[in-house]
């Protein structure tokens, strides 16, 4: 059973990375947004594997649902201007590619080495989701211990909304 999960995880991870790559490489912005959606769903599935089904739900609804819509709208609003992705390894991009690859390696190395130092409980997955039902815990936590989280998030989102409305509205409309 273990190898099956593992294999699935690797598969989904690779697909996610490929989708992220697609996000950056596609020519049309619209398509980029679609790829982003798939990437986000991939990440959501990762959460599921890690035992966070409720977070997966949030990821899909808020991110894949809400934010993506924003992107689509803004793409529509800023016109259908096509940008060529300069993925032909042109000279001007060679530095950036190099930087990115270096970043990937250093970051991975760092995280793995730090993890190795801290000795977490091995590689065993603490899959609380399957034993207790994570959504339930999550809700209990949200409504008891962390019961100010949702209002604060509300205020935060609201101020973001206020700001964006203020930004988008033209002067004469206000």
């Amino acid at each position, binding site marked *: 059973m273990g190898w099956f999960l593992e294999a699935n995880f690797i598969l989904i991870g690779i697909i996610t990375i490929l989708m992220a790559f697609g996000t950056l490489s596609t020519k049309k912005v619209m398509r980029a947004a679609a790829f982003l959606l798939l990437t986000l769903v991939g990440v959501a599935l990762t959460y599921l594997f890690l035992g966070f089904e409720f977070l997966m739900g949030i990821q899909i609804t808020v991110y894949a649902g809400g934010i993506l819509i924003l992107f689509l709208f803004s793409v529509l609003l800023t016109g259908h201007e096509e940008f060529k992705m300069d993925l032909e390894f042109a000279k001007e991009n060679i*530095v*950036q590619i190099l*930087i*990115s690859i*270096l*970043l990937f390696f*250093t*970051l991975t*190395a*760092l995280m793995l*080495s*730090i993890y190795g*130092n801290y000795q977490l409980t091995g590689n065993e997955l603490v899959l609380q989701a399957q034993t207790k039902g994570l959504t339930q815990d999550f809700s209990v936590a949200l409504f008891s211990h962390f019961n100010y989280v949702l209002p604060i998030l509300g205020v935060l989102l609201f101020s973001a909304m*206020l700001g964006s409305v*203020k930004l988008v509205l033209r002067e004469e409309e*206000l």
Partner: protein
Amino acid sequence: MESEIIYYALGVVTSPFIGSLILTIFAFIHYAKTHGHEETEENNHEEHEEHGLKYTPLENFVSTIGILSIFASWVFMLLLAIKFFTTEHHGAFLTTSYDFFGFPVTQNIQVGLLVDALSVYMGLIVTTLALLIHMYAREYMHGDKGYPRFFATFNFFTGIMLSLVFSSSFFELFIFWELVGLSSYLLIGFWIFKPSAAHAAKKAFLYNKVGDVALLSGFLILYKLTGTLNFMELPDKIHNLTPLQTALISVLIFGGVIGKSAQFPLYTWLADAMEGPTPVSAILHSSTMVKAGVYMVARVFFLYWQAHEGEYNFAGDNWALAVVAWVAAITALLAGLQALVENEIKRILAYSTVSQISYMVLALGAGSKTAAMYHLLSHATFKALLFLTAGAVIHVVHTNNIWEMGNLRKKIPKTFTAMLIGAIGLSGFPGISGFWSKDAVLATVYYSDVPGNKILFTLGVVTAFITALYTTRFIIVVFFREPTPENIERVEHAHDGGFFLTIPPLIMAALVILESLTFIPTPIFKFEEWLMEWLEPGVHAHEVALTLPILSAIVVLLGIGTGIYLYYYNYNILASLNQNKVIIPIREFIAQRYYIDKVLYWIANVPAMIVSRLLQDIDIKIIDRTIIDTWIVKGSLGLAKISDVFDQGIIDGIVNGVWMIALTLGRAFRKLQTGIVSNYASIFAAALVIFLGYVNFLIFIK
């Protein structure tokens, strides 16, 4: 027996409403059909004079319904009065009521019918006058396109007024109190196209509203303190109140009277209310509606009496009646003077009404409900008569100004006869109805213990003189003086109106004479004592010294004589008086209504509008623009500025020390500043790589 009386009272109250309802529905159907286009502003008098009086089917139907419903009410009233006065005992009452709000806490606020001597007496006056004036209106309003609307509203008013009279609680009284204000509003503004009518209607309503608010506050405080508003329960409960409370409540309630019964300083609306059709002036603004205040004070007289109990001293709190009396006396004088300088016939009568109502209020203030109701009866009759005849005069000469009339006694003899009788009544000619009732008022004042009662008495006598003077003035100017040359033609064509325009005034004239005969005190029957037994059982009238009626008679005769001398025999004196430099400003001061209106308008227009504009500016500019748009959006910028000051003051001091290094470095890195975001990000990413590599290196060493 008792239930019979209640049913009669119910009939009295409801039949005008039924008529009004039918007429309203009819009027709505009429307007829906014609879409209102047929209603024009002018009364087409000329038209029907040429073709004779021909009522359209519409007018016939409407006026028949209107008059019949009032007639039914009058019949019920007669039955009720006969039943009541023959079977009941003095001071008895009957009441029936139901719970208006329907929940337990307010069960003492009820709506019902209260039948006692006061309401029966008042109801008789109202129905009789309403019937006669409805008949009069049938012809007077002929040709007006608003005929159905007029009768619907007129019937509505009659119903409301009767309901007010038979109200059994303060709450109910207040409902109808405001509703008579409404019908007054609708009827003053009846000629809806005249801007002046609209203005006068609004003014009347608003002035009334000011008084109503005082009244409302007054009886709500009463409700708080006693827990009931029913007239029949109140007398037992007010004994627990402190004198201050009673006085406060009484004065607040009197505020309502000031508005409705046109007392100083809110009396000017009544003159403007003459913009309405004459039947309206006759019934609302002279004989019934404006008497509602007097009626109400009489109704709750126990309250004033409670406030009054004991000896007067100004350290105490029993000043409620004194306020009433003094306001009334001042109003009587001011309004009388104004009637003396006014030129429009209906306005003269309006000011005279104010002055005469003040007599009644004065009587109340002096502590006699009987005298007030006595004068109310006589005044209602002759003033309604005067208005009807004045309307007839206006109707035939098409002007309101008395100086444009003249020598009309031969042209319109029936109207002249009726009006003369009314005027004699008003002037208080010895032996006629007005004389007796006025005398009762003056006697009450003279023997009362209100502070300054002698001064009040003097003011009353002076007003009596003025009354006689202005009555004589308009009678002579309208009927006896030769018309000025430019008005001769206007007068030439005048002739008496039709049946309905002449008969109701003549009936009223007959009523005045009947009253005069009834009022003559004889050893067998004294009207005042009879009335007192019914209204104030247990109270006995003062023995009036003979000097008082004689004084009054002399004053009245003097007034009439002066009038005849000034306006008929020796007009030159008047002319020279009018040129007198001392008289002119006084005359102007009076004609400008003592600037009361100007002051009130100023208050209503200037400070109120300034406050209004100011608050609107606060709304739009401060709350909207400043707080929302500026504080919230720009507030963050303000914070940025504060930190900016902090930056410049303190950080800069340190920074300046190393500015040289920065400058040098800056020059070196200047070329990196391409302004392209991607480049910045690239540099950042490269730096990140270096940093992470360094950390890795550190861990690796470990």
